[in-house]
């Protein structure tokens, strides 16, 4: 099934560039905090159906999932997929003591998502001159059946992957916007491009 991306090519390039910058800032923030090098992938922008979103995100094995909603000029949700591998090295970098309890692991996951998603969103909003407020992240255990029943048809997703150089840890952050916010962002992009 091919879906026409609701953004034209120019808008898409602009958004990708903006994302690239904000993701870079996010990676920098995290790197600064845990004092280690972080690599990021080139951001991907696409339109997906609920089922596609599910397979994009949740068919990863041995992973933790979180979600976090944001409000403000644009509304949407950030979903993150964190690898279970390499988490203990990251925990050490984040100043946690071994052995990690179940609660410690949950806390680390939530904090990592909060930092990265927050930094990405902050960077993006700043460049688009939009205000956004991120809510608390929560752990997420998605059910495919529920995804198939979601009301929306398509959503714009922006996806980027972070890899921490010294361990096998990696993390994917996916932004999803609702229709209204998408329209607003398109306008903003147009203003920037004009």
């Amino acid at each position, binding site marked *: 099934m091919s879906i026409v991306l609701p953004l034209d090519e120019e808008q898409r390039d602009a958004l990708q560039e903006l994302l690239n910058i904000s993701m870079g800032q996010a990676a920098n*923030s995290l790197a*600064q*905090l845990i004092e280690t090098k972080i690599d990021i992938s080139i951001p991907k922008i696409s339109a997906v159906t609920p089922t596609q979103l599910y397979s994009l995100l949740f068919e990863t094995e041995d992973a933790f999932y979180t979600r976090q909603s944001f409000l403000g000029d644009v509304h949407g949700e950030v979903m993150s997929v964190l690898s279970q591998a390499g988490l203990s090295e990251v925990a050490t970098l*984040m*100043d946690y003591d071994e052995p990690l309890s179940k*609660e*410690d692991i*949950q*806390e680390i996951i*939530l*904090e990592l998502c*909060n*930092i990265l998603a*927050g*930094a990405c969103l*902050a960077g993006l909003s700043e460049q688009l001159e939009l205000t956004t407020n*991120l809510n*608390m*992240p929560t752990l997420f255990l998605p059910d495919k059946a529920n995804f198939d029943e979601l009301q929306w048809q398509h959503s714009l997703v922006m996806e980027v992957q972070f890899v921490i150089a010294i361990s096998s840890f990696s993390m994917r952050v996916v932004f999803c916007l609702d229709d209204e916010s998408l329209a607003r962002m398109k306008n903003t992009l147009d203003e920037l491009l004009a």
Partner: protein
Amino acid sequence: MFEQLVGKLPVGIGIVDENFNVVYLNDFFLDRLPHNMRDCYKETPVVELFQGQGKFLKRRLKSVFVLQHPSFSYWEQRPHIFPFKSSRPITGEETQMYQNMEILPIKDKKTGQKLACIFLQDVTAQASYFRAQQKLSEALKKEHEAQRKLIRKLDTAQSQLIQAEKMASTGQLAAGIAHEINNPIGFVNANLNTLGQYASHLIAICDGVQGQLELFTDELKEQVDALFESNHYDLLKDDITELIAESTDGLTRVKDIVENLKNFSLETTEGVQIVDICAVCHQLITLISAQYSAPQYKFECKHEKVEVMGNPGPLKQALMNVMINAAQAIEDKGFIKLTVIDSPQLVTIKILDSGCGIPTKHLKRVFEPFFTTKPEGQGQGLGLSVAYTAIEQHQGKISISSKEAKGTVVEITIPKQPIAAASTDEGSEKNEAENPQTA
């Protein structure tokens, strides 16, 4: 006004500078400080003021100052960041306050100094409710599991009951049919005997006529010859005796089967009595060889009779089920050997077949009710479990060993005299019967 409002808010609000020293605390925090500290809390490091989770708090504050981005913490992962007592110290179930925390980066508008604002929410009520719910749901889950197990047991018991009922009614049906068949078989048998005699008479007459043929006139001779010829007398003569002999044999077999069927079904209600194992084995061989003719049946016993005290119905049923399995294991060639070994206290019955055997992985489960490898509808997986129950009733043992493609041996051992339970029961019955007489 705003200062008053912030002071009285039912959430904790605290402001910390970049060195983690306290700049401001609202009443929520102040109420929970020791009395002597309330006036001189400013400029004190926050981790000194609130000891306990200092390392964590510092880490989070650092993250907020570095990233300029809010940080969250939940009671589920870290319930007690600030060492506060529950807000209901007298009536509450929880002694410590459960907290959700959010740290926001802010800036002093005048000086531009970077600050961090700590919001602290008391979620003790939610937490204790949530935990109670969790306990409840766990208890429910356990109960549910226990119930499911019970239901499964009940299901098994019920199907066994249904099966037993079926067997009983099948038995009755078989007995009825056997009885009904007996009558026609009686007269068919009698008639067949007479028919045999008549046939030999007829043949004698014909042979007589043939012998006297030379004395007839040529015309008559030709006519009689033609008559013999047209009716295929030679063939008829050879065949008729054979046919009758075969029919008599067949009928004898039918009689045997019906007799055995009657024996089997009628005896299910009988109580404990003397059972001759050898006779049972012979009966079984007759019965089963009628249905399964592929294997060769052998019987071995050093004695004419081996007697045990037991319930003939279940015992026969058990042996029959084992034998049927043995017979079904043999597809075209093979043998089934029954060996009865008589020892002072016990009788051992070995049923050996040279059939297809049982795979090792199935061997452990063969006595399980409803375990079967036969296609659906062809076996209920009850044969051996019924046998097991029956043998156990007789305080006996049944064991099975098998090699794939080689064969199977089932060994059944039963005591000649049932011990304990049965005998004491009889004793008490006797006593009860005697008591009224003495009284």
